C-alpha cells in the first residue's frame, strides 16, 4: 500500500472526526507555537546582547569616578570626580597597550533655529570615537587643534540630529549649547541602546576643553576632573592584566594606602555582556524546555486519541486484515494518521508561533528573532512526537488477530 494512498486514508479518517482531530491537534499547535515563540524571544534577547557586544568591542574597560567602601555602601559613581584627564594621559603613557578617552558629562539644552532639545553633552578627546568603536556618518571628529583651542565645534548623535534638523543636513549648522553657539562638524553613526536601555544616540560631543571652558564653566569643581575614562585595550592583550595595571597605577597616583578602598570604579563591560549573553542563552533553553513540555502533553493527547481510534475501528482493522492487509499495512496506516495529526498541528503551530513572536515584538517591544533552526526543530519535534506517541496505538492495531478484530463489538 503506497504512502499517498495511506495519506488519503488518514486524512479521510481525520476528516471524519473534525472536531476531535482539531482538538487533538490543538495540543501540538500550542506546543509548537510556544516553542517557536519562546525560542524567538530568547534568540531575540541573545541577539540584542550579541549586538551590544559587537558595538562595544570585546576589550573595553570603563573607569568611573567614585568609590566602593568596604562596608558595601557605594557612593554614587561619578559624584565625587576622583579621576582626571591626567589619569587618562598617564594610563596611556605608562601602559602602551591602552588607549584612553576621558569624558565629562553635562545635561544641556540644545537649540537650533526654533528647535529645542534637552540632551547629554559629552566633552571628549580625539580618541573617543576610536575607543568607543563609534564611527562618523559624515563630517569629521575632533583633532588636537580643537583640544588646545577649545573650539566651538560639535558632533551630533543621531537622535539629536533628527530632533534638531529632521531630514536636513546638520553639517556646518550652528547650534546653541546652553546658549553658546557651536558649529556642527560631524554626525555619529547610530549606536542604539546601551546595556542599561538608554538611547546612546541622544548625545552631543564637544571637545573636552570646550566643554569645560565654554559650557560647564565654574560648575566643574576640579578643573582637570572627568566623570569617566573609557579605555580600549589592544586586541589580544589580557583584559585581567590590563585591569590590574590600571588599578595599580590609579591607586598609586591617588596615593591610596594598602587596605584603603579604590576611589574609582572599574568595570570590564564586555564581561558584563558575556555574563548577560550566557544568561540569555540559558533563558532561551529554559523557555524552550518549558514550551516543550506542552508539546509533550500534546503528544500524549495524540496517543490518547489514537488509542480510542484503534478501539473504535477494530472491526475496520479486522476487515482490512480479512481482505489481505498485513500487520505492517495497518501499522503504517495508524502511524501516518498520528504523524499527519502532529505535522498539520505543527505547521499551524509554526504559523501561530511566527505570528506570536511578531506580536510580542510589536506590542511588548521586545526584540524577537524567528530562526530557521527553531522552525526545523519544531517541525522535527512534532514529527517525532507523532511517531513516538502514534507507534504504540498503531502497533496495538497491527497486532490484533484478524478474527478477533472482526468479531469485536
Amino acid at each position, binding site marked *: 500500500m503506497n504512502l499517498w494512498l495511506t495519506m488519503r486514508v488518514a486524512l479521510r479518517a481525520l476528516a471524519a472526526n473534525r472536531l476531535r482531530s482539531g482538538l487533538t491537534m490543538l495540543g501540538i499547535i500550542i506546543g509548537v507555537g510556544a516553542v517557536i515563540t519562546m525560542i524567538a524571544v530568547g534568540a531575540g534577547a541573545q541577539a540584542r546582547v550579541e549586538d551590544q557586544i559587537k558595538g562595544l568591542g570585546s576589550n573595553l574597560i570603563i573607569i568611573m569616578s567614585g568609590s566602593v567602601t568596604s562596608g558595601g555602601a557605594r557612593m554614587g559613581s561619578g559624584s565625587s570626580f576622583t579621576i582626571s584627564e591626567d589619569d587618562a594621559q598617564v594610563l596611556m603613557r605608562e601602559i602602551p597597550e591602552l588607549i584612553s578617552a576621558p569624558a565629562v558629562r553635562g545635561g544641556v539644552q540644545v537649540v537650533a533655529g526654533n528647535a529645542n532639545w534637552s540632551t547629554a553633552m559629552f566633552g571628549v578627546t580625539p580618541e573617543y570615537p576610536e575607543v568607543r568603536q563609534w564611527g562618523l556618518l559624515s563630517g569629521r571628529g575632533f583633532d588636537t587643534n580643537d583640544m588646545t583651542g577649545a573650539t566651538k565645534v560639535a558632533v551630533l548623535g543621531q537622535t539629536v540630529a533628527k530632533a534638531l534638523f529632521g531630514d536636513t543636513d546638520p553639517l556646518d549648522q550652528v547650534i546653541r549649547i546652553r546658549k553658546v553657539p557651536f558649529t556642527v562638524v560631524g554626525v555619529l553613526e547610530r549606536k542604539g541602546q546601551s546595556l542599561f536601555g538608554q538611547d546612546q544616540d541622544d548625545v552631543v560631543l564637544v571637545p573636552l576643553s570646550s566643554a569645560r571652558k565654554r559650557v560647564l564653566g565654574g560648575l566643574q569643581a576640579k578643573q582637570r576632573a572627568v566623570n569617566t575614562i573609557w579605555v580600549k585595550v589592544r586586541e589580544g592583550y589580557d583584559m585581567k592584566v590590563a585591569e590590574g595595571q590600571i588599578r595599580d597605577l590609579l591607586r598609586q597616583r591617588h596615593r591610596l594606602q594598602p587596605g584603603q578602598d579604590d576611589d574609582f570604579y572599574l568595570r570590564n563591560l564586555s564581561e558584563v555582556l558575556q555574563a548577560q549573553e550566557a544568561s540569555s542563552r540559558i533563558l532561551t533553553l529554559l523557555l524552550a524546555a518549558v514550551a516543550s513540555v506542552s508539546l509533550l502533553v500534546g503528544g500524549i493527547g495524540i496517543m490518547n486519541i489514537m488509542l480510542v481510534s484503534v478501539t473504535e475501528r477494530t472491526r*475496520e482493522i479486522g476487515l482490512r486484515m480479512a481482505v489481505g492487509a*498485513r500487520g505492517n499495512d495497518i501499522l503504517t496506516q495508524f502511524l501516518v494518521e498520528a504523524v499527519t495529526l502532529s505535522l498539520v498541528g505543527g505547521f499551524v503551530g509554526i504559523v501561530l508561533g511566527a505570528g506570536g513572536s511578531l506580536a510580542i515584538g510589536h506590542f511588548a517591544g521586545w526584540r524577537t528573532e524567528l530562526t530557521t533552526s527553531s522552525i526545523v526543530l519544531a517541525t522535527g519535534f512534532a514529527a517525532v512526537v507523532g511517531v513516538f506517541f502514534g507507534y504504540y496505538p498503531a502497533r496495538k492495531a497491527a497486532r490484533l488477530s484478524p*478474527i478477533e478484530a472482526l468479531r469485536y463489538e
Partner: protein
Amino acid sequence: MLIRTRELRKEYSLGAHRVQAIRGVSIGIDTGEFVAVMGPSGSGKSTFMNLLGCLDVPTSGDYELAGEPVEHRTPDELAAIRNRRVGFVFQGFNLLGRANALENVELPLIYAGVAAADRHRRARARLAQMGLTDREHHLPSQLSGGQQQRVAIARALVTDPVLLLADEPTGALDSRTSLEIMALFQELNRQGITVVLVTHERDIAQFARRIVSFRDGLIADDRANAAPGDAHRLLEESAA
C-alpha cells in the same frame, strides 16, 4: 482437491474453562463445488469457515488449500493467502462506511499492490457484474442491504480468488433479496468458483449441490443435494 482438512481442531480457553469449537473435522472439497454448511447455533460452523479462510489458525490438525499446507505460516503469509485465494462475504456486509462502493471493492487490490488504473478497471468490472455500475460512488449508507451485500461480493471476487466463503450472507436480508444473492452465487459457481456457504436456513442450503451438517463441533452429516434449486428460475417465477 481444493480443500483438505484432517482432524482439524479449534479450542478456545476462557480462563480455566476450555471450549472445543471444532473437535476433529476431516473433509475434502473439490474445485467447483457449491457446499452449504448447516447446523445449530454454536455447532462450530463459523469457526470452521474462519479456519478455511485463514482468518484463524487451528489448535491442531492439518489443512491444505490448493495442495499447499497452511499450518506454520507467518501472519503475513496468511494475509497474502486471504488476499489472493479467498474471498469473504459476511452476514453484516463489513463495508468501510466512509469509502464509496468502488473504493470498497478496490480495497483487496490495494493490499495486493495493484496499480491505480488497473485497480479501478477491475473493481468497475466486478461492480458491473453485480449490476451496480450506477452505484459506484454511493456510500454504503446510501445503498440497500442487498446492494451492500453485492458490493461485498464484488469485493470478495475482485482478486479472482479460487474460494468464496460466505458466513450467513443472507442472514440480514429479506427473502427476495436473499434469492437474488443466491442466484448470484449459483451463477458464480457455474463460472467455476468454489463456494462454501454457512446458513441456518434449509431454503437457502438447498441451492447448494452438497450439504454438510455440523453438530457439537463435528460433521454429523455430509451428502450431495441431488436436485438443487435454481434461484434464478425461482426469481423469474415470482416476478411473473
